[in-house]
């Protein structure tokens, strides 16, 4: 830094000389002298060379680097590459899951439709009654019981008990 004498000898209004500006920004006794010559120097005399963040530069740099390392780790984890075989395996697993789910759904739907058919059939009983299941039956061991009807339109029920017949008939 230049001396006070040199500064006072060289200082002029609207100076852009870096050495003179540096001096006026750090030398308190020369500030009033400079202001008397050039009032514009008032705020220029503040400068910014001596400013240090609270806690000092080391602590500041340490904080920045800690944050940078933390973010780098997070980014590295986010961007971990996935191989094409791994991607294929994931896609196959998803496809199997979807198809399996669809198949199970279809299977369960086919079961639940059966009682519906029965219900529909029960709505039209005449279609079964129009024609008997067994029209003629001849057996020496069988016992045939005919349920008496209550009217002309009533259904005629005949029960056959025959021990020689298979159980699942």
């Amino acid at each position: 830094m230049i001396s006070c004498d040199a500064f006072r000898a060289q200082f002029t209004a609207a100076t852009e000389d870096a050495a003179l500006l540096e001096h006026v920004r750090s030398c308190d006794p020369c500030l009033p002298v400079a202001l008397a010559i050039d009032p514009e120097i008032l705020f220029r005399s503040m400068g910014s060379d001596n400013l240090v963040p609270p806690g000092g530069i080391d602590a500041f740099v340490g904080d920045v680097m800690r944050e940078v390392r933390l973010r780098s780790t997070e980014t590295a984890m986010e961007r971990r590459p996935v191989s094409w075989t791994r991607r294929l395996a994931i896609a196959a697993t998803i496809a199997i899951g979807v198809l399996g789910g669809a198949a199970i759904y279809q299977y369960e739907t086919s079961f639940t439709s059966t009682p519906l058919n029965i219900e529909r059939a029960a709505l039209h009983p005449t279609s079964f009654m129009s024609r008997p299941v067994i029209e003629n039956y001849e057996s020496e061991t069988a016992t045939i019981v005919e349920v008496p009807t209550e009217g002309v339109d009533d259904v005629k029920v005949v029960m056959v008990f025959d021990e020689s017949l298979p159980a699942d008939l």
Partner: protein
Amino acid sequence: MGAELRLMTPTKDPVQPDDRLLVETIRGGDAEAFEQLVRRKTPKVYALCYRIIGNAEDAKDIAQLVFIKLWENLGKYDSAYAFDTWLYRMVTNVAIDFIRNRQSRENAVNSTLRLVRTSTDAEQGVVMQRKEIETVFNEVSSVLSPKQKTIFVMREMEDLPSAEIAKILGCRESTVRNHLFNARKLMQAQLRQRYPEYAQLWRGQ
């Protein structure tokens, strides 16, 4: 003519050859090189943040944010351009955003509070204390828009030429000069109102 020459001759070289080499090393994955860059640029970045924001703790937070953004965006830096210009652009963008947000918060909390000094304060005479000048600056510059303040700080305290400021802010040099002119005018009016003793010292034109 003298003014033209002054504008064309930068007071300091914004391009440091080492910066580009350092950036290339950092791009290669060297975190220690980044630490070196942070250490090298911290005084300038923090000082600019502090002068624009006017508060040490906020300036520190903003300066740290700038370096983190720098780390994340270093891949976008084109080494054909001066590194400091690119860095200062980042600083001014973040600092201006911060001031705008802070202003809207303050406006929402208290839109009528104004600091006005009493005549007794003014009668105490001019005290040439640097701390006092700083307080005066922080108070009278509060009427400036974030952009005006940023330009004033870069021109008056960082000694950057108007052409360089225009590059940093991505605007024309004439725009920089207009902002500077208006900033000085507004500050002079504030000085007259709040610190008449300083108004006699600083013409602002």
